[in-house]
């Protein structure tokens, strides 16, 4: 009788049709991933070991050693390293300040929101924002000149150069660090500090022997993540410098546009080399994060 009041519907059943049936549910996703993620990336991988006739060759990989390409990798690595370390340290200090630094709770929530926005604010608008603030007639450039009588461009600064680009990248780098490190700092238990004090340790000894070693894997891991984050950035650099800085991504962009290397295979090798560096950094990040999670379980 009670059945009658319910909508008459065939009850769902998961029929035991074995493993094959189970896999059908995830096939569309895997097909998509193969078609639009693995096929494109493996075609670049294959292309970097093929000559113009389609035969196997190492020439493209060896060709990466020409000075212009090595320079571009070196510049990309330096920009990524500087912004990863700089953004990492600053982001860590900020995360410390808002998580266990004794600031009121509203500061924490506002910094987290800012960080969510800023770490997603990149590309063309970010480049314009930095032109507006540190360009030749930018806001801060003007303030420094008019009020403090410091002409940063006279002093050798240029927004469209290495340091300018690095400062711009920092805008999305350090907020990412805050987003990852604030929860990690929360993971430091009060009891660890108390146990340390109880065993006679000073605050410095607590940081040196306990807190820092616990945080180090995720600190390093996140810096590596930041490194990859900057290494793969293209839109911001292009919009800011118009392609004048010789970064790997800029090189690849030029190669897609018009085969500036006059060798498609070399272009693929360039991309392949980049993926290798990205893959190493993401793998290192994942490994270090796991290590910390194991500790903090």
């Amino acid at each position, binding site marked *: 009788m009670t059945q009658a009041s319910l909508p008459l519907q065939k009850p769902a059943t998961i029929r035991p049709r074995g493993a094959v049936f189970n896999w059908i549910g995830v096939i569309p996703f895997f097909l998509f991933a193969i078609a639009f993620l693995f096929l494109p990336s493996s075609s670049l991988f294959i292309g970097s070991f093929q000559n113009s006739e389609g035969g196997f060759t190492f020439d493209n990989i060896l060709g990466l050693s020409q000075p212009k390409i090595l320079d571009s990798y070196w510049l990309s690595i330096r920009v990524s390293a500087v912004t990863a370390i700089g953004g990492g340290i600053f982001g860590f200090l900020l995360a410390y300040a808002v998580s266990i630094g004794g600031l009121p709770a509203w500061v924490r929530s506002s910094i987290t929101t800012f960080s969510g926005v800023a770490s997603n604010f990149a590309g063309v608008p970010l480049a314009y924002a930095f032109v507006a603030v540190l360009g030749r007639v930018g806001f801060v450039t003007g303030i420094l000149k008019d009020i403090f009588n410091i002409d940063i461009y006279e002093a050798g600064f240029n927004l469209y150069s290495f340091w300018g680009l690095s400062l711009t990248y920092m805008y999305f780098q350090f907020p990412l660090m805050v987003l990852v490190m604030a929860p990690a700092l929360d993971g430091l*238990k009060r*009891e660890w500090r*108390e146990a340390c*004090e109880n*065993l*006679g*340790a000073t605050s410095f*000894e607590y940081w040196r022997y306990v807190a820092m070693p616990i945080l180090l894997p995720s600190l390093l891991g996140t810096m590596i993540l930041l490194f990859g984050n900057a290494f793969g950035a293209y839109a911001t650099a292009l919009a800011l410098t118009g392609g004048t800085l010789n970064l790997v991504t800029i090189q690849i962009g030029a190669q897609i546009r018009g085969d500036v290397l006059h060798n498609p295979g070399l272009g693929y090798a360039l991309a392949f080399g980049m993926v290798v560096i990205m893959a190493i950094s993401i793998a290192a990040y994942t490994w270090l994060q796991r290590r910390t999670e*194991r500790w903090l379980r």
Partner: protein
Amino acid sequence: MAYLELENVRKEFNNSVAVENFNLKVERGEFVSFLGPSGCGKTTTLRMIAGFELPTSGAITINGVDMTDTPPNKRNVGMVFQAYALFPNMTVADNIGFGLKIAKRPADEIKKRVKEMLDLIHLPVKGDSYPYQLSGGQQQRVALARALAFQPQVLLLDEPLSALDAKIRVELRSEIRRIQQQLGITTIYVTHDQEEALSISDRIVVMSAGKMEQVGTPFEIYNFPQTSFTASFVGQLNLLPVTVSDAEGRRCAFNGRALAVGQPIRFANGASVRLALRPEELNLGGASGDSQRNELTGAVESVNFLGSVVRIRVDVGGATISIDLFNERQLVLPKAGEQVTVNFPAESCWVME
């Protein structure tokens, strides 16, 4: 002079009183438990001894030295935390040796001491393991070894067993007592578990709402509770609503039935009070004319078999009382609804508000 002394200790948080009027003298080598419900101030008091909280007023002395304002890292007091608080980045050996390392003792001395401690806690081969590889019970043993390794003057334990399984809890508590007696270390143990406190302590401080209710040996606390809080918090207690009929002659009336009371009655005749008695003091059957035993009758409500003990609940008219009988194979248990007579010695019951 007592080894550890708390004098008129008081602690306020944001104008609300957490602990007040706390006075305690603990002898060297004594094991004292602070027992009470959560929020009664027992942990706060412990944390004041450790130095994590500063008393609002009062004084704490250890071995004749005033420690009231000494920072925690200068107190030489060992502490074991509820959630173990082992350092996850260090091995078991490094955890245990941490206090000695901070004190800059030579490496071989640390090594020797760590080995001693590992033997003491019966984990001689776990020195190179990391805390996450140990069970909860093992972690807490390591935490205990870490707190003892640097030979503190006082050992403090803050509900060290409450995160563990029932079986491990019982095992570890006798282990803690064994180690404490072996080393003869003065120990303060905080718990909300009365069975734990009763089984492990030399003396118990029962606390409620920031105040000391009673201080005494487990035997005194259980058998001679001085306040109604202690009586009801420690152990099971039956409370019968009675009227004082003859204070001088130590007699009460329950449903018109006269009951003899062993202890002096400090209430006027006619006062409505409660008669307190422990379930294990009651027996099935009549008093068979013994004037020193009281008799009650009623219907059995339920019979619960708990293993070593059988708990029978009897409705004696207006109140239900519990009777605990020791399990024996030849025991004949009454059925629910059956009329029974129960008896208890006058000596075992007392009158409370």
